[in-house]
């Protein structure tokens, strides 16, 4: 009677997630597009002209990859954290918990939803950037894979945040106090060559720094870091976060009493 029920359940979750963020596109798709275009205009065009070159490129070209990554990171994270938390809050998460869906399918569904939103916004921002900068692609494989993996990492992070969140404050604390600073200090707007030695080393402890630089490498072909190491680190993050999510789901943290 059933085709593979797990596949159907997965599709159902993804469709529901996409329906959610497109239904509220004024809150989900539009704001990042506006913010990022302001960055393009202000930092790229107005201020950027006076800065001259950064890391060997026009300032605009330098920041575009970072801004695209910023959009992907923020949107992947915020989609999963808001959606899963609001399901908890409205108790509609019970619809999933009573159904015969393995935990990894539940997790994959939400993660896929977060990635679809992250990548959608990333794509819109990329298309917009074409009006401001003239970007080629140095390595398509590296560019695409680093975006996918980064989006995956932050979707998983958003899920963990949602599991532990008890109120609406709890879903904005991490994005505001952790993610945003790490993104801004992650070399989106400057090359770490500009930093004094101490901060240069400190920056290398920031995972987002590696993601942004790897993406920039994929597009421009230059980077402050070792790309192989960046991929290794991304994979490690994914394994640890995925394991953590599955463990939390199995324990029923935040969802079963």
């Amino acid at each position: 009677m059933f085709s593979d029920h797990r596949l159907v359940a997965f599709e159902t979750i993804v469709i529901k997630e996409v329906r959610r963020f497109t239904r509220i596109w004024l809150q989900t798709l539009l704001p990042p597009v506006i913010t990022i275009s302001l960055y393009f205009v202000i930092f790229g065009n107005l201020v950027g002209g006076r800065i001259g070159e950064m890391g060997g490129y026009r300032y605009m070209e330098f920041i575009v990859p970072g801004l695209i990554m910023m959009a992907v990171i923020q949107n992947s994270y915020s989609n999963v954290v808001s959606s899963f938390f609001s399901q908890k809050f409205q108790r509609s998460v019970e619809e999933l918990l009573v159904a015969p869906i393995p935990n990894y399918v539940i997790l994959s569904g939400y993660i896929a939803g977060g990635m679809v939103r992250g990548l959608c916004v990333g794509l819109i921002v990329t298309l917009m950037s074409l009006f401001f900068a003239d970007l080629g692609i140095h390595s398509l494989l590296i560019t695409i894979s680093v975006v996918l993996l980064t989006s995956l990492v932050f979707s998983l992070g958003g899920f963990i945040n949602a599991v532990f969140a008890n109120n609406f404050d709890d879903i904005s604390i991490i994005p505001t106090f952790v993610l945003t600073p790490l993104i801004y200090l992650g070399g989106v707007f400057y090359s770490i060559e500009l930093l004094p030695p101490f901060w240069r080393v400190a920056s290398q402890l920031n995972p987002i720094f590696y993601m942004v630089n790897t993406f920039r490498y994929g597009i421009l072909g230059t980077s402050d870091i070792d790309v192989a190491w960046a991929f290794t680190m991304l994979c490690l993050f994914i394994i640890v976060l995925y394991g953590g999510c599955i463990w939390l789901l199995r324990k029923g943290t935040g969802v079963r009493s």
Partner: protein
Amino acid sequence: MTVAISVSNLQKSYASGTMALKGISLEVGQGDFFALLGPNGAGKSTFIGIVSTLVTRTGGKVRVFGRDVDTHVYQTKLDLGVVPQEINFSQFEKVGDVVRTQAGYYGLPRKLAAERSEKYLRQLGLWEKRNDRSRALSGGMKRRMMIARALVHEPRLLILDEPTAGVDIELRRSMWDFLLEINRAGTTIILTTHYLEEAEQLCRNIAIIDEGRIIENTSMKKLLLELDTHAFILDSDAMLEDEVNIDEPGLSLRKIDSHSIEAVLSGGRDINSAIAALDRLGIRIISMRNKANRLEQLFLSRLRGNGEEGG
């Protein structure tokens, strides 16, 4: 008889320290219409939560159609549909989407999911509302939507936690008919309710839970047979001047206000004997009613009994 659900020594203590279930054992046969009764806080919803895996138990076993819920997760969940006491759907989704999405969670391919949603939304009178946001439904409609949602994968066992709370009388009756119909068609039903008349109308077997323990588990027939006293209020056409005080074996009559008399019958005495006795006093009875639902009286006496035992 195949057993739809059997639980043994079910225990739950919540993180807060509340012992909600103190070792419950219960069997409900396939095809049964079973009532789970008990006062507020007795542990009914906790029991249902455990069966549907939303609450993790701290002890005991649960089997659904003979299968252990721990080792046969997929099949036991497929066999079970639950209508919860509290609203638990996304308020922003459309009615049709809520039901169809649930079908998808159970693995129903899209076409079948759409057919089933339509079938049950129609049966529950919500098809016209399918494109409305679910938060825009009235309270009774929300309950019916949750019934449609619980049935969309056509479970063999349907558990409803106070499905008729806050539902108007007409709708309640049509919900009863609906539940009787799917029960006749083979679905085993367990329901909790605070309307004892509802349990009397619908259910063949009952259990009463109080303070996390089962204090009665019997058939509705046997329970009603145990009730051998009936109390009625009789209304006279004229003002009652004198006291009425009759105490015969099996019959007692007492004036309770200017126009009414309480009649308590037991040991097989019938209401005619009460009316005849009053007639002899020149009192004419123009109407009568049950003093209270008989089941309610029994229920209250059981709960009081349990309280005394418990100290």
